[in-house]
């Protein structure tokens, strides 16, 4: 390995640095770098040390600050002593780069009441939306027109979820019933699943790397219990009861546990074969509004990724999904972040212990939605105090606040390469935020009333948003 040394060596012109990966393992030994090394030189070096076949992009962080200019300038700015060994953490960036969406390509009307939830299928080919007019609609992305209207619910459709293999779509309504749909024909597959006594607040599918084809999903309801359903048996197999107040959100983790957050201020971790309570995570002072897992994006998209490869058999899909999951997770345990009405969030490692790892304070109003970035590096939180805050995904430290909205921010969604974030708010605008620059990238006005739901398609091409003005807007790059 050769290294270009410019300007001669000597204590004043070089710095002793050690490259470490995000988990803390050092890459090679401490090396003397000249002070005018730029990040692209460091990228070359990392690629060589790791013996990557293709040139993968990396971002470098020194003490949580990103290195954008040369080492020397950075050291000057932050007054780092050249005597000590400097630890530079490198983070792999996504190979593909998503173009930011900046125009509304279509405004599709169709719903007769407010659109309450939108979701892209895991392969990004289909789009579904649930609304207050009790229907679920499927939309054609190529022609940008309505495809199917699925009627059958008795009250507002509050939650929809695609199975990670893309074969089923499940929707839950205010009447407490769940309905399974076949997205290719738009017909219901079976009768509505009855069991809950009050409205459904959230639905989460079992990850495809645990069982393929996808059969089970868990639903959370206002009546305080979560139920695991089997679509092939068409009934509730396990009922997870234990919460004293409404369960506001539920997530099926990649390690096979179910996490439920509730208005009784606790988060419970359940085992899935018999429905036994494993852990109870206490700490919040008010309702737990939202949960997110570090591997959430991988669990949602299953075996599909940006290459757009289609799989023929469930075993293949399971294998591919398992590979992706293991690559993403690495050696560290799954992390869970919960956002609450007490204006704070907790970062937990539920596999290890039941005390939170970090408490993330800073918001001034209840936090409505928290979301891990697809690569697990960042956590974004949307709150009623009109700001979106960015936190470090491993330590939970505060990084930046995105201000610009003038009304409570309802939902956020990450782009597949983790470089962009879109947020929808009560003030009827969507805003795209750039993570690298830590600033607003684009403003997307156009909705006539509050925006209730946003989603970025997994292939990164489109953003879909729906709200109180009853139209679905598709935004393209």
């Amino acid at each position, binding site marked *: 390995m050769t290294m270009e040394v410019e300007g001669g060596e000597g204590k004043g012109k070089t710095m002793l640095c050690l490259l470490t990966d995000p988990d803390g393992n050092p890459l090679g030994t401490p090396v003397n770098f000249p002070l005018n090394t730029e990040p692209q030189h460091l990228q070359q070096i990392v690629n060589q040390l790791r013996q990557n076949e293709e040139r993968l992009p990396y971002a470098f962080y020194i003490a949580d600050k990103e290195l954008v200019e040369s080492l020397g300038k950075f050291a000057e700015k932050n007054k780092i002593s050249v005597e000590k060994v400097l630890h530079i953490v490198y983070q792999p960036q996504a190979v593909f780069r998503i173009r930011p969406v900046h125009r509304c390509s279509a405004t599709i009307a169709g719903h007769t009441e407010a659109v309450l939830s939108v979701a892209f299928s895991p392969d990004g080919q289909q789009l579904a939306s649930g609304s207050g*007019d*009790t229907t679920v609609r499927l939309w054609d992305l190529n022609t940008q027109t309505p495809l199917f209207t699925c009627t059958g619910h008795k009250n*507002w459709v*509050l939650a929809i979820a695609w199975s990670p293999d893309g074969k089923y779509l499940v929707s839950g309504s205010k009447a407490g019933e769940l309905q399974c749909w076949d997205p290719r024909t738009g017909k219901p597959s079976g009768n509505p699943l009855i069991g809950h006594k009050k409205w459904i*607040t959230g639905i989460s599918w079992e990850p495809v790397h645990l069982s393929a084809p996808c059969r089970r999903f868990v639903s959370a309801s206002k009546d305080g219990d979560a139920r695991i359903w089997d679509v092939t048996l068409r009934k509730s197999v396990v009922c997870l009861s234990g919460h004293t107040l409404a369960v506001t959100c539920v997530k099926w983790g990649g390690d096979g546990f179910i996490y439920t957050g509730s208005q009784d201020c606790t988060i419970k971790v359940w085992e899935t074969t018999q429905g036994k309570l494993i852990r109870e995570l206490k700490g919040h002072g008010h309702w737990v509004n939202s949960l997110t897992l570090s591997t959430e994006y991988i669990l949602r998209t299953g075996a599909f990724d940006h290459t757009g490869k289609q799989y023929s058999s469930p075993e293949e899909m399971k294998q591919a999904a398992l590979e992706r999951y293991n690559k993403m997770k690495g050696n560290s345990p799954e992390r869970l972040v919960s956002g609450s009405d007490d204006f704070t969030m907790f970062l937990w490692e539920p596999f290890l212990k039941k005390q939170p790892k970090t408490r993330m304070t800073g918001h001034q109003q209840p936090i*409505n939605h928290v979301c891990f970035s697809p690569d697990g590096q960042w956590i974004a939180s949307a709150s009623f105090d009109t700001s979106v805050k960015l936190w470090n995904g491993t330590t939970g430290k505060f990084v930046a606040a995105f201000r610009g909205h003038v009304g409570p921010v309802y939902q956020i969604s990450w782009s597949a390469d983790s470089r962009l974030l879109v947020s929808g708010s009560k003030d009827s605008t969507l805003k795209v935020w750039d993570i690298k620059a830590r600033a607003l990238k684009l403003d997307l006005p156009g909705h006539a009333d509050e925006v209730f739901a946003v989603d970025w398609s997994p292939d990164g091409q489109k953003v879909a948003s729906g709200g109180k003005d009853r139209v679905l807007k598709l935004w393209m790059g």
Partner: protein
Amino acid sequence: MPQGDYIDLHRKRYGYRPDHFERKRKKEARLVHKRSETAQKALGIKGKMFAKKRYAEKALMKKTLIMHEESSTRRKVDDDVHEGSIPAYLIDRVYTTRAKILNNTIKQKRKEKAGKWDVPLPKVRPVAEDEMFKILRSGKRKTKQWKRMITKATFVGPGFTRKPPKYERFIRPSGLRFTKAHVTHPELKATFNLEIIGVKKNPNGQMYTSLGVLTKGTIIEVNVSELGLVTPAGKVVWGKYAQVTNNPEIDGCVNAVLLV
């Protein structure tokens, strides 16, 4: 109804008649038919009163029957699909609806348009013209009666000069002119002696406003620079409105309450 207990005593001593209970049962059974007969035959006021009582009984009976029927069937909680659908994360948060806020703003706008302000004395006794003006006779023969003297307290500005006596119609006697008012702050309950800047509105009419007449209920503008009030933007407030609360021509001073 028996006034003593002799019936009970007899029953205790000698018991009941052998057919007592049978007769009682049959009489009660016949009561139904008897009632129906009276309902059909009763005339006049008696009939009306009876019909009214009977109707009340019938309505009550119907209600109890419905109540009993309800509890015997199991009914699912069947909500209708309401308007104004909101996502799951907003259902438990009840805020004032947009309609209510809109309604409030409309009401506010209407109030402003009508000019109805929120003042401490909303209504005052109207002052008649003959009470307000005293007719002054002028001319050689004292026949001309076009001059008027104002009998109430007035405010004239600092730069006031009388019109030439030949042409002035309204005379404001200098004894009844006031420059300062005793203004009370309603919250602090303290009274200050503040200079009057001008008369904003006299409820008796805009003629009196232009003349500067101070009667009970008049809105005046006073100089509050003494109080040291500052606006949220940081500017110093030096003029505020106040409403006159007494009859200055009787008391000899102007008392007012500050409008905050």
